[in-house]
């Protein structure tokens, strides 16, 4: 990643706008999950996300192609129009609507814009935005919000859901870790992103019990990579073990762990295998490969 010597003087306003845009979809999901807003307000939340994207297009759109700008602008308008007309009785209908997916895509794209003078604030935004959008908008699939080993006391379908969401979350965090490490971004960016992610998930779940797990799962691989930058396999494995084991241990200590030892072990090993496979197959992107 290219950083200018004067990176410390970069404006904080634009990255803050991107970060706010990344948080907005999670607010909508929170309202739908906890029924703290009338369903009619769903369209208003989409108006916020779409509006945020349009503002970002004004601030940063010059660095995108005309095709990208047009696509994101049209998607933002369509998203609001569709939600206004149809409403949403269920979280999934609101979250998985194609125009809304493109709006989220647009916010991620804005966050990944590279500029020579980018400082730590931008690095943090670049790391955090995909995580916040994916597990904010997709909070119903988050293992920290709909905790699998506790809520799903039985039945193959719910054990399957728990295993899959845990695996998905671990894979996402491992991938983000690898991208952060290859980009050469500051450790403050990674720590900040993990902290923001932990706060978001705690807020969505209305519980802080998984915050230590998320923070530990973020800090340990970071320290491993600081000691040995080539130890990606070990760092990824540590993240997987701490996160998956930590989730189940937290549930065990705070309430009832419905999974037996075979499922516990199986979930942990599946997450570990997924993390190791990701790290083993990881290659630098075109931008990261530049000297």
């Amino acid at each position, binding site marked *: 990643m290219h950083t200018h010597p004067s990176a410390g003087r970069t404006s904080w306003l634009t990255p803050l706008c991107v970060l706010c845009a990344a948080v907005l979809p999670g607010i909508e999901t929170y309202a739908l999950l906890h029924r703290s807003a009338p369903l009619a307000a769903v369209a208003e939340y989409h108006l916020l996300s779409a509006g945020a994207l349009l503002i970002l297009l004004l601030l940063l759109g010059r660095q995108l192609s005309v095709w990208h700008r047009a696509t994101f602008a049209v998607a933002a308008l369509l998203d609001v129009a569709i939600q206004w007309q149809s409403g949403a009785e269920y979280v999934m*209908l609101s979250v998985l609507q194609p125009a809304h997916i493109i709006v989220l895509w647009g916010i991620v794209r804005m966050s990944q814009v590279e500029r020579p003078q980018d400082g730590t604030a931008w690095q943090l935004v670049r790391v955090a935005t995909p995580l916040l959008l994916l597990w904010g908008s997709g909070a119903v699939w988050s293992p920290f919000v709909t905790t699998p080993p506790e809520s799903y006391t039985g039945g193959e*379908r719910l054990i*399957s859901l728990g295993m*899959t969401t845990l695996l998905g979350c671990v894979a996402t965090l491992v991938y983000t870790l690898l991208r952060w490490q290859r980009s050469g971004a500051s450790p403050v960016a990674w720590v900040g992103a993990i902290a923001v992610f932990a706060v978001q998930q705690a807020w969505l779940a209305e519980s802080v019990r998984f915050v230590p797990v998320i923070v530990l799962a973020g800090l340990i691989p970071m320290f491993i990579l600081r000691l040995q930058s080539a130890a990606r396999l070990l760092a990824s494995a540590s993240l997987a073990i701490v996160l998956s084991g930590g989730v189940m241990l937290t549930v065990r200590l705070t309430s009832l762990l419905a999974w037996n030892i*075979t499922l516990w072990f199986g979930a942990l090993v599946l997450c570990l295998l997924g993390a190791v496979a990701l790290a083993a197959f990881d290659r630098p992107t*075109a931008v990261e490969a530049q000297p």
Partner: protein
Amino acid sequence: MNTSHVVRIPALTRLAQRISDPVVGQWLLMPAFVWFVGGLFLDGWAHNHGKVDNTFFTPWHAVFYSGYLAVAAVLALLVWAAWQRGEQWQRALSVPLRVALVAAPAFGMAGVADLWWHTVYGFEAGIELLVSPPHLTLATTMALICLAPARSDTVARSAVQRIPAVFSVLCAWSVGTFILQFNHPFGIVWPETSTLGDSGMLVGVAGLVLHAVLTGCVGGYMLSRRFPRGALSFVLVTNALLIALMGDEYRFAVGMLVVGLCMESADAFLLGRFSAAQRAQLRAGGTAALTVLAYVGVIAATTVLQWPLLVCLGLALVAGYIALWCAPMTFS
């Protein structure tokens, strides 16, 4: 190891030289892999169709473990060939084959552990059966063994010479989908039975996105490595048929054939029009998105699709976009 004192029979040395050719070695491994992985899915079919009782010694296990012995025999033959030529196998064999040589005895030990596990803890059912410690060890070592030809493959070889690598990708990926069959969309078809607000839809969405992304990665990898035309379609269809053995859902093989043909046709269009990195993204993302569309398309064409169309389109975008981010892993 100094083997200069060994008397070498010329005919055996010539045979060893022939076997030591990397392509010949892969061709020897290929039928053993088919036997090995075929035995795995045969055992899975038997478990899912009530053809097993509470014993380790079943005909299905016999096929499976004899397949393992066949693979082990071929690997031992490759080591012998190196020794016969007066070389050390640690230097003569490629790194992927050395990994396979370490994984093979580990698989054997895991098999013994599996026998002990079932003797002590009995026979589990469902997801517990798939994720028990011996089974995960078996699957991991099996995947490492099966990956050897693909990792040794080079683009410079002819289409015929690369056939074993195609089977290698198929076998390794199929082992992964076998272990993850508890959330595979071809297993329990949630879009037929679950609706909005149902926990089944949550499960179905999670499984569909995961497997579509994995399919996207396989598609991106095979297209980026320029496997022979038709190889991707073959791998997608065969894997779909293998998974279909578990739940008798053979119709999705048609959908995967469409995905393979579309992506291979589109790939010819991509060359020369985009940068290498962009092509990798389009390959992985396109395969993943098409997988979702083909899946829901097959359901809509054969039964009733309960999920709203907009949700299905949104899922295709989600899977495609996640696979797009994974594209660097498929491209080297």
